[in-house]
């Protein structure tokens, strides 16, 4: 967008571009404001029940961040749910994506629709409809219902992310490998998997992050189990906990801990995929959900492109 050298740029255009940059910087600041506040207030020594007003600098919350057992348990449960649901959803979703990209078959339209629908359904509805199913069949809500729900909403994200990444791959490479004498197992391990691995890794990362952060669907289906987001939510109602167990700075610290690994993971995925932007898991999923999703699922089979 920079005008070529030699072009005379009138002053008002330069001022205009400057203003645009400043505006963008301010939006970025808006995105970071709560994060600064979380970090700042994790060093606060709150007076009374709420950690809303700055009182004094303190390292209390950081000295032993996992001292408070329920918080630790909630984190452990969330990680367990996320690991389990991610492994299952990644396999299911990747298989769907593979089938959609490599084969033209009857019913692929229906599958595209089935993948997009959960994304256009509000979380409240997803959560409540699953709960009504569990109530109807008399299932008790708990660990397994959380996992089931998380797999359900992750499958779509994984399938769409992987499909966006592997669409347009040159599948004749597989045939070439076979012509060169590789047996089917070798073709899969040496050609197919390495080709689709970055897409699958990005999708798995996204699914893990979504599961770790999900609150609404989990709220409906958790029964008496408390995941990390449910714990944070509960801490708001039980803001009357004794101060020693005061949850807010603790949660801040836990929030920092939790976000670090998932960030490292996804930036690693980015670096691996070499291209720019589009490849970070979130951008990837958004990128594939976006252009014309609705149109596409309405009247066209995606098949092999």
């Amino acid at each position, binding site marked *: 967008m920079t005008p070529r050298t030699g072009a005379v740029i009138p002053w008002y255009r330069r001022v205009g571009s400057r203003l645009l940059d400043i505006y963008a910087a301010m939006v970025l600041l808006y995105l*970071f404001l*709560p994060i600064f506040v979380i970090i700042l207030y994790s060093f606060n020594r709150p007076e009374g029940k709420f950690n809303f007003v700055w009182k004094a600098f303190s390292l209390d919350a950081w000295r032993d961040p996992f001292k408070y057992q329920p918080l630790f348990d909630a984190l452990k449960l969330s990680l367990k749910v996320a690991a389990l649901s991610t492994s299952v959803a990644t396999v299911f979703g990747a298989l769907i994506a593979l089938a959609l990209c490599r084969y033209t078959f009857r019913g692929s339209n229906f599958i595209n629709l089935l993948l997009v629908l959960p994304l256009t359904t509000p979380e409240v509805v997803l959560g409540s409809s699953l709960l009504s199913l569990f109530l109807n069949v008399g299932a008790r809500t708990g660990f397994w219902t959380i996992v089931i729900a998380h797999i359900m909403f992750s499958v779509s994200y994984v399938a769409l992310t992987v499909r966006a990444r592997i669409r347009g791959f040159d599948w004749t490479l597989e045939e070439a490998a076979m012509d060169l004498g590789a047996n089917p197992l070798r073709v899969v391990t040496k050609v197919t998997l390495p080709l689709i691995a970055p897409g699958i890794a990005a999708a798995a990362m996204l699914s893990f992050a979504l599961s770790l952060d999900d609150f609404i669907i989990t709220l409906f289906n958790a029964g008496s189990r408390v995941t990390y987001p449910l714990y944070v939510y509960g801490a708001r109602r039980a803001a009357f906990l004794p101060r020693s167990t005061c949850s807010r700075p603790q949660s801040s610290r836990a929030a920092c801990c939790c976000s670090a690994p998932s960030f490292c993971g996804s930036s690693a995925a980015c670096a691996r995929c070499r291209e720019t932007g589009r490849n970070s898991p979130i951008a990837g999923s958004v990128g594939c959900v976006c252009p*014309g999703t609705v149109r596409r699922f309405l009247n066209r089979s995606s098949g092999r492109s």
Partner: protein
Amino acid sequence: MAGAAQGGARQSRLAPYLLVAPGVLWLIVFYVIPTLTLAKTSLAVGDAPWWESYRQALTGYGDHFLRSAEYALAATVIAVLLGYPLAYVMAFRAGKYKNLLLGLVILPFFTTFLVRTFAWKTILNDNGFAINFLQSVHLLSEGGRLLNTTLAVVGGLTYNFLPFMILPIYVSLEKIDPRLVEAAQDLYNPPSSAFRKVILPLSLPGVFAGSLLTFIPALGDFINAELLGSPNQQMIGTVIQNQFLDVRDYPLAAALSFVLMVVITGGVLLYARVLGTEDLA
């Protein structure tokens, strides 16, 4: 999978079905069937006509539906106004800092949704610095509040779904061929018409996708309304959640969910019809 890789397997008619089977079955059992169960639950039992809970839902909670739609729409519009310029700067003016900026946009969202919203509660708190600052510059009257206002709820919704607006717009801007932009700048004067006639139309699919990704979750959200608003700002999500988990009036709750779903699906289809007439894919 090993079977699928075999020579000539591409013609195999069973292979794709075997590949999609586990995931599709899962979605049918845990998405399609629950939705049907929800529909069944919403139909009243006993002597009342079948639409009884729908009548209750629409007469009793029409306000909530309307308010949710207003808030979600406002949040979507504000998100476009905030997100588009940032995406534009990222795509065209950031140069080698492109990826850094992209990382910065995503970074805040690696903290939990709830923790972020709590942080806003801290910022907007009655004794917080935002209030003090606004009062000191006389933008806010002495007894004025930020927390528990419509502004806070819409602001929270905008904040939490902003990346879903920025990223698709960025992706669609980034895909534009730079030569096209250059040609437009040569052909059009003033440069603003180059933007209006070339860049903006090409980025509309991104705006379209971003709006859906912001509007849909914002419409069903209840955390922002609950944490940052008062009962006056209650959205339909709160009502559904209350009816399901606390009041346990399942038919009414199911009817509310179903109406919300129909409203959204209808809205999405209409939106696609109106804006998506060209080939967006």
